[in-house]
């Protein structure tokens, strides 16, 4: 193909967008609307996922030791816990530190109630806070830590606590939410594909006669196909760009006006920057590809004249 012919196809693709005014409008809006809905669900799924991550990462294991455990012993236990590959970090919480936290958690009222329990009167044991790389591995790690007692005649570890049921319930919820989110987004993507290809098919059926005339004049299939290809790309890009722009603007407004309120519950939205490529970018790429795909598929059917 000569360069001038390539230029001709591109020029023609752009001209066709204008020539088919209403049809272009119909396809652009169907792409914009269906991808807009898809985008909203992508944003929702993304934020639910982020929320689930935030909840997961708050999961930790508390390991309590015997009251009379000496420093050397607890150091040894700390090293053993650190040696478990799934463990991300281990923080030693001394009995004094524990009391301080307990006192803070009771607030102003209960402050004085704990007076007299300092130093040797402290009833709290030393403990560790263990964090896992993968929150789903928490119960596995807890079992490994409990197993440390087997080789320890003093049985220094009294308790390994990780809110077993709460965690398992939390995981089943967050996993379900993630799966449902993916399912809905995939379903909507398929629906969008169907809707878009139908609209584009309609615009091309209306031009079936034109295609057959072009063939009678001696145009090769690729000569006919290229302008449609370009036109499909323009329509797809246009429609998806519109929906992506509205989505991004709407989302940034939403984040700006509500993040302060939501922040009170220790929750953060996915930031606009994170979302821009993940949702906005995906939608534009998807829309452009759908436009090209729809027009190419539909033209092919009428080329056999």
């Amino acid at each position, binding site marked *: *193909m*000569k360069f*001038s*012919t390539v230029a*001709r196809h591109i020029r023609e693709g752009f001209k*066709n967008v204008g*020539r*088919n005014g209403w049809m272009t409008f119909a396809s652009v809006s169907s792409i914009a609307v269906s991808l807009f809905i898809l985008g909203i669900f992508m944003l929702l799924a993304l934020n639910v996922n982020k929320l689930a991550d935030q909840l997961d990462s708050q999961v930790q294991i508390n390991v309590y030791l015997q009251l009379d455990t000496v420093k050397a012993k607890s150091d040894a236990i700390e090293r053993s816990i650190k040696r478990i590959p799934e463990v991300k970090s281990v923080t030693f919480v001394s009995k004094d530190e524990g009391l301080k936290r307990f006192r803070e958690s009771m607030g102003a009222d209960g402050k004085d109630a704990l007076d007299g329990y300092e130093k040797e009167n402290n009833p709290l044991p030393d403990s560790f806070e263990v964090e896992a790389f993968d929150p789903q591995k928490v119960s596995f790690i807890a079992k490994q830590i409990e197993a440390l007692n087997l080789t320890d005649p003093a049985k220094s570890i009294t308790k390994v606590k990780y809110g077993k049921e709460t965690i398992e319930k939390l995981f089943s919820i967050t996993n379900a939410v993630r799966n449902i989110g993916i399912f809905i987004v995939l379903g909507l993507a398929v629906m969008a594909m169907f809707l878009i290809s139908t609209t584009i098919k309609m615009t091309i059926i209306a031009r079936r006669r*034109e295609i057959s*005339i*072009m*063939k*009678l*004049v*001696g*145009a*090769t*299939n690729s*000569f006919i196909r290229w302008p449609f290809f370009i036109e499909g790309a323009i329509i797809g890009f246009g429609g998806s760009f519109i929906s992506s722009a509205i989505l991004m603007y709407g989302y940034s407004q939403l984040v700006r006006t509500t993040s302060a309120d939501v922040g009170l519950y220790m929750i953060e939205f996915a930031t606009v920057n994170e979302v821009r490529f993940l949702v906005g970018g995906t939608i534009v790429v998807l829309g452009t590809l759908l436009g090209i795909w729809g027009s190419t598929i539909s033209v092919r059917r009428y080329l056999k*004249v």
Partner: protein
Amino acid sequence: MIEMQDIWKTYPDGTTALQGVNVVIDRNEFVYIVGPSGAGKSTFMKLIYREEVPTKGQISVNGFNIGKLKHRKIPYVRRNIGVIFQDYKLLPKLSAFENVAFAMEVIETPRRTIRRRTMEVLELVGLKHKANSLPAQLSGGEQQRVAIARAIVNSPAVIVADEPTGNLDPETSWGIMNLLEEINFRGTTIVMATHNKEIVNTLRKRVIAIERGSIVRDQLRGDYGYEI
């Protein structure tokens, strides 16, 4: 130029349109194809520009064996054949100029040549002043002249015209015929299917009559021969 040997054509629904047609049309001839509706005229024409393939027999146009042509090659054969239809078959969203230019874009003619040649041909058919009009803004006769301009712009060896005057009033029809005669005079072979008795009887040419799928008459400087 066009040679058919024992051509048979049966459509998938079982209708037999042509049975054993033999014909030779030489370079620079002007041939009328006449006959009642449904006799096989249109099939005869369609075989020439390869919209249909014969069920049996050999057909060659301008040296190409059309029946055995690969799909990929069809466009290249059609470029040597200008086709004119009763319903014009113009691209509705393109102007007169763009419709004619399209036939040249297809063969990757340089833009400047396209511009010059298209205007030249539009002038020949008397439509230079309507170059930017859309088909819908033109009368039937004008649309047919655009179609003729498109058919001749690449200087094809053959022009196939299927009832080119079918939708036009007598006066406009004569204008179209004058144009076709001039094109023929410049060296293009013309095969024209028609129902127009007056034209055939006045502008005497070779007449091939087809009835029930067979050639029943082939005469030089013939007449229409049917009562309407």
